[in-house]
C-alpha cells in the first residue's frame, strides 16, 4: 500500500544506492563503451523502473515494474490458505495439486484462484467481479483437469479455505478447511 513517508524513505534509499553505484568512474567508463542505443535505452528503462517502484504501478509497465515482494509486515493478520478439491463424477473427492499434469502444469492457475477469492473477501466494492473471476477460474480448472486426466473426470471443483491465527502458526492439528466456492460442471 502506497504511503508517502515510506515512499520518501524508499526514494532516499534508491537515490543513495544508485548515486553510490554511478559515482564510480570505473563503472561509468565501462557503461559508456556501450552503443548509444543501449545507453539511451538503459536510462529510459531505469526511469520507468524507478517510477514504477516508487509510485505503485506494478503491472502497466511490465517488465519494468516494481519489486515489492514480501516487503510489508503482515501485522499479525490471520493466515488464510486455499486449496482446490476436485469432485469426481463417481462421487469421490481429491485435493488437487497446485500444478502438475492434471492442471496442465499451470501453477499460476491455482495462484490466480487464491488471489481472486482473496480480492472478493477483502475488497467489498469488487466482490461481484472477483467472484465471477473465481467461478471462471474454477471452470477452467475443471476443463484443464478433464483434458489432461481422462480416466478420473471431474464433475465439480470446490475452493476450500482455512484460516489460521497468526499467534498460533504452529497449531497441531491445523484447523479444518471450509468450502467457500463451488463449481459444478455442466454434464
Amino acid at each position, binding site marked *: 500500500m502506497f504511503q508517502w513517508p*515510506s515512499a520518501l*524513505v*524508499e526514494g532516499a534509499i*534508491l537515490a543513495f*544506492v*544508485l548515486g553510490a*553505484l554511478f559515482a*564510480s568512474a*570505473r*563503472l561509468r*567508463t*565501462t*557503461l*559508456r*563503451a*556501450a*552503443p548509444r542505443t*543501449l545507453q539511451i*535505452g*538503459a536510462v529510459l*528503462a531505469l526511469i520507468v523502473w524507478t517510477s514504477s*517502484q516508487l509510485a505503485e504501478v506494478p*503491472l*502497466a509497465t*511490465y*517488465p519494468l*515494474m*516494481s*519489486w*515489492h515482494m*514480501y*516487503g510489508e*509486515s*503482515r*501485522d499479525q493478520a490471520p493466515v*488464510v490458505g*486455499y*486449496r482446490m478439491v476436485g469432485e469426481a463424477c463417481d462421487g469421490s473427492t481429491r*485435493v*488437487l495439486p*497446485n500444478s502438475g499434469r492434471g492442471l496442465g*502444469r*499451470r*501453477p*499460476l*492457475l*491455482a*495462484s*490466480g484462484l487464491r*488471489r481472486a477469492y482473496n480480492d472478493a473477501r477483502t475488497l467489498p466494492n469488487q466482490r461481484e467481479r472477483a467472484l465471477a*473471476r473465481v467461478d*471462471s477460474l474454477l471452470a*477452467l480448472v475443471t*476443463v484443464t483437469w478433464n*483434458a489432461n486426466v481422462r480416466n478420473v473426470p471431474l464433475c465439480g471443483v470446490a475452493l476450500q479455505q482455512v484460516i*489460521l491465527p497468526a499467534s498460533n502458526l*504452529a497449531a*497441531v*492439528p*491445523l484447523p479444518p478447511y471450509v468450502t467457500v466456492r463451488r463449481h459444478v460442471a455442466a454434464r
Partner: protein
Amino acid sequence: MSPRADASTVPGAGSPPTLALHADASAASVAMLRVGVFLLCAAEAWVLWRQAAPIPPDAWVPFGLLGWLPAAMLDALRTTMGQQALFVAAGLTAVAAAFGIAPRVSLPVATLMFILSQAVPRALQGLVNHAQVPVMLAALVLTLGPSADALVLWPRRRPPPPDGRYQATLVYIVAALCIGYAYIAAHRLAYGGLRLFSDESLLQWFMQRSLSEANPEQALGTRLIRSPWLATAAQFAFPAITALELSAPLCLFFRGYRRVFVPAMLLAHTAIYVLMHISFSQLVALYVVFIDSAAWSPRRATLDAQGIPLPLVVFFDGVCGLCNRFVDFLLRRDHQHGLRFAPLQGSTAESLALPTDFDTVVARDGTRTLVRSDAALAALSRLGGLWAFAAVLGLVPRPLRDAVYRFVAHNRYRWFGRHDSCRLPEPHEALSFLP
C-alpha cells in the same frame, strides 16, 4: 574477509580505469550468453505451448504490452489456437535470435514475443512474479547491445565493434540484476522496517503457502514453523538476505563480494523453492553473468605492440599418442590460424622455462601460461564457432577438471601409445609449428 577490488586499467597513457569484471569479454562471450538466454526463451515458449487452454473472458486481467493490444487480438489470445500461435512464434524467433539468424529482426522480435508470451499465463493470475523478468531485461540488453558478432549461422558483413562494447553489454546485465535486488531490499526497509524482521511475517508467508499444499501437515514450510530452531534460523536469515540484496551492486566491483553473494542467494532461492514452491530457475541460470566471462567463454586474444592478436601456443608431449591426436584434431579445425604448436621437449619450450612436467599440455597466451584442463579448454575454445562452447566447461571447478585430466594423462601411454621420437610437421603444417 576483505573483498578484493576488481580494478584494472585500459592500456594507454591517461586512460580511465575500467571494471575488471568481464574485462576479457570477447564477441564469443556475449554471443554465448545470447545463445543461452534465447534458448531459455525458446524453452519457456515450449512449456507455455503445452499449457495452452481456452481462457474465459472474465478470468484474466491483461496487463503490460497485453493491455495495449486491440480487443480482437486479445480475444484471439484467449483461445487455445491463438495462444499456441503466439508461443510457436515466440519459440521460433527465439531460436533464430539464439543462432543469429537475421539478428536485426529476430533479436527485437524474439524479445517482444517473450514478453508478450510470458504475460499471457500471468494475466490469469492478475499478478506477475519476477523470475522471468531478469531474463527479459537480459534479452533487451542483448538486443540493444552488440551480441550477434559471433556464433552466427553465417558471418556478418559489418566489421565487429570495439572490444570494450562486449564488456559493457555483460556489465549492463549484471547491473540490471543487482539493481533489481537492491530495489527489493529498499522497499522492504522503507515499508516493512524493523518490524518486518522482528515479527513473524516471514513464517506467516511460509505457512500461507503450506496451507495451499495438498498435504499441508507434511509440507516443509509447516515443519520449519513447528521446529523452534529452524524457525529462528529463518528469522535471522531474513534481514541477512535483505542486507545482501541491498548491497548487491557491490558485485560489480568486488570479486570477494560475488563469492559471498552468489552462493548465499542461490541458497536463498533454493530455500524459497523448497518452502514456498516459487521457482527462480531462470533467474538462477542467469547468475552465470556474476562469474567473470574469462571463466566460461573464450578470452579476447592478447595483442602485440602493433595491436595484432597473438596466437595461442600449445606445448605438448611430442612422443605421446594422445597429445599428437589432440594436436591433429586442433590443426584440422584451426581455420583462423589462431594456434601454434611446439613440443614440450623442444627449444621453444626450453627458452620459455615452461614446466618440465610432460604430463600436461601447456598453453601460452601472451605472457600467461595455462596448464592441464585450462590449457586444453583454451585451445579448444580458440577454434571459434561452436567450439567456443568448450569454454563453458571452465565453470566446472578446476580441481575436478584437473583430476580427470591427471587420470587420463597418467594412462595416456598405455591407452594411446607412445612414439619413439617427437612428431615432425608435414610441409603444409610447417607455419603452425615452432621448434
